[in-house]
């Protein structure tokens, strides 16, 4: 492999994403953690661009770096916003988990390592949004509509669960 610009970009983005993830694991202040994760999300958006998925990249920035991070921050603010106490779970569970994660990673890694898919040329980057739109509204119209139901459900559900009690219990 050559050190093309694309590669450097990938390396940087990947590094940022992983660092964001590692920070998530190691920081103690919850707000900091979420900020760290924003880096990851943005980096992932960059990766999408490398993968000729501009529309997804846009969606990624909007939804993850924007919406989800914000509601999570809201969530933190609404609850214990200054919570920094990050008690560690018991050692054996972490060890257990770590072993599991490593094992899993190892097994999957040998599957994807040097994976040669011999892809054909493609034209995803051309009019990416148009392609997505066409596919979405023709072939995938049923899941699309179903997703709207799902969003409605999530909306209603979030409201009824999160809204303050009218009966003034508190």
């Amino acid at each position, binding site marked *: 492999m050559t050190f093309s610009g694309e590669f450097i970009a990938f390396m940087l983005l990947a590094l940022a994403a992983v660092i964001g993830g590692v920070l998530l694991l190691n920081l103690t202040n919850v707000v900091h953690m979420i900020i760290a994760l924003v880096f990851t999300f943005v980096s992932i958006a960059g990766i999408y661009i490398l993968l000729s998925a501009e529309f997804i990249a846009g969606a990624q920035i909007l939804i993850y770096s924007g919406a989800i991070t914000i509601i999570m921050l809201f969530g933190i603010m609404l609850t214990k916003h200054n919570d920094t106490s990050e008690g560690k779970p018991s050692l054996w*569970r972490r060890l*257990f988990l770590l*072993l*599991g994660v490593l094992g*899993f990673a*190892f*097994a*999957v890694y*040998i*599957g994807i390592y040097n994976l040669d898919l011999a892809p054909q040329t493609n034209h995803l980057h051309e009019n990416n949004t148009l392609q997505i739109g066409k596919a979405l509204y023709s072939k995938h119209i049923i899941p699309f509509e179903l997703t709207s139901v799902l969003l409605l459900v999530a909306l209603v559900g979030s409201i009824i669960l999160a809204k303050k009690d009218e009966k003034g219990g508190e």
Partner: protein
Amino acid sequence: MMETAWIIPLFPLLSFLILLLFGRRLKEASAFVGILLTLASLVYSILVLFERFTAPTYKSEAAWLNIGDLHLTAGFEVNQLNALMLVIVSLVSCLVHTYSKGYMHGDERIPVFYAYLGLFTFAMQGLVLSPNLLQTYIFWELVGVGSFLLIGFYFYKEEAKAAAKKAFIMTRIGDVGLLIGMILLFWQTNSFEYDEIFKAVREGAISQGWITLTALLIFVGAVGKSGQFPLHTWLPDAMEGPTPVSALIHAATMVAAGVYLVAALFPLFAASKTALLTIAIIGAFTAIFAASIGLVQTDIKRVLAYSTVSQLGYMMLALGSAGYVAGVFHLMTHAFFKALLFLAAGSVIHAVHTQNIEEMGGLWKKLRLTGPLFLIGTLAISGVPLLSGFFSKDEILAAAWEGGHPILFLLAVIAAFFTAFYMFRLFFMVFTGEARSEMKHVHESPGVMTLPMIVLGVLAVISGYVNTPWFGTFLGDWLTKGNDSLGHSHVEGPGWIMIVATLVSLAGIFLAWLIYGKKSLSRDWLSGRGGALHTILYNKYYIDEFYQLTIVSLTKGMSYFLRFIDLFLVEGIVKGVAGFVQGLGKTGSKVQNGQVQTYGAMAFVGLAVLVVIFALTGGYLK
């Protein structure tokens, strides 16, 4: 008559059933039912016997149990031995029925008593009529039950309970031997029929080894039933039953069944020298062994019981020495005089309400009828010439001598001496001298009791003459007619044997008279010399204690050992499995600790494990 001989046992059976169903209403009248019905069967038996003198053996059978192609039959047979036994049984039974009317008077359970007697008589007659081993075994067990029930008649007495139990179990040990022997014989000959078995033996269809084995096993049954050593201990204890019962069952009939069995199967035994010798040895040993115990017992019935054991040993000795006729002959005479002795003893007990001879004495004058009758019995059993016992005992001694084992002969002679001694010891202690305890209202038994004794007394005197060296061996000739395998009709022993026998009995009587009659010799003279011996004898060689220590303890030990296994091994495994499952559940529910991350972790690690296993085994890496 012979064709309908099967009716004979039905009379007592009928008596049993009637009394079972209506006994409560009949109360004392039950006795009449029993007496009449046994009388009927006695009459019938006598008629059959007379017919048998002229007619040949009659046998009739029908299928009883079908097993596939196998048809086991049941029926009856009237041959010489049967016919004779039938009369003996019916006669003694009828007499005892009559006697009991007086003896049991006042007991509210008379109907039950007569019912049991009926059952026993039925079984005994059935046993005698059986044409095959299986049927024999069936009635063999049934007589055991009759005996058991009657021994335990006084159920509220602990001793009776124990004695009944003991009798049943001890005889059952013997029965199992009989059962095994019979079954093995069946698989060798494919039949339970006596005829078939004898035929197979004659034709050599069975190997010698099998003959010996089965014969010995069958003999085990006889040992149990006839109270031979080492299964004799139940018989003296059986005296807990009412005395008429002792007379009927434990003297005259049932205990003789063992002898009868050996006699009935004589061709089989005769085919094996080993078997015969074993029988002879056991018989001789039992004869002297029981007689020696009888020397020192103080319970009137127990003395008689040991005497019975001893006499049965005699009979076995006779059969074992190939003296078929001698054995059967003694069986008959013994039935009469021993029944007489027991009934007389019963009469004594009835009068004085004790069984301890130490407390008796001087009853000769008070019991004017019982005394002489008892004396007749005593003389007969002691082998005093001219009485029945003399002839039969002489036959036996002759057979033993001819059998070629002088030691056995010697034992028999000594036993005869002992017999004479202890019987007269008994007689003198009971009837002569002064009463050794306070005795009130001693009076002779009523006629209903004395009449049977008189009949038996007569028979005890004359029954010997059916087979004497002087007036002809009618019985022996008849018994062995048409059957070579039964041996000679009469063993012509050397003449001195009769003299020796007579002398020996007289010596015994004389010694007894010296000690107990005239009291010229102190009673301690003997017991003082052999103190230890006396104790051993008095305690019956500690056989009971020995069994208690060994067999009973062993059984109990085994039981407790198995219970240990049951509790700890069997249950333990079950508990272990249950505990394992429970433990699994406990662990599982501990892991379920309410932490959602644990749940996720378990799920994921589960996945990871599967994935890693897949990578290591099923994956393309391999």
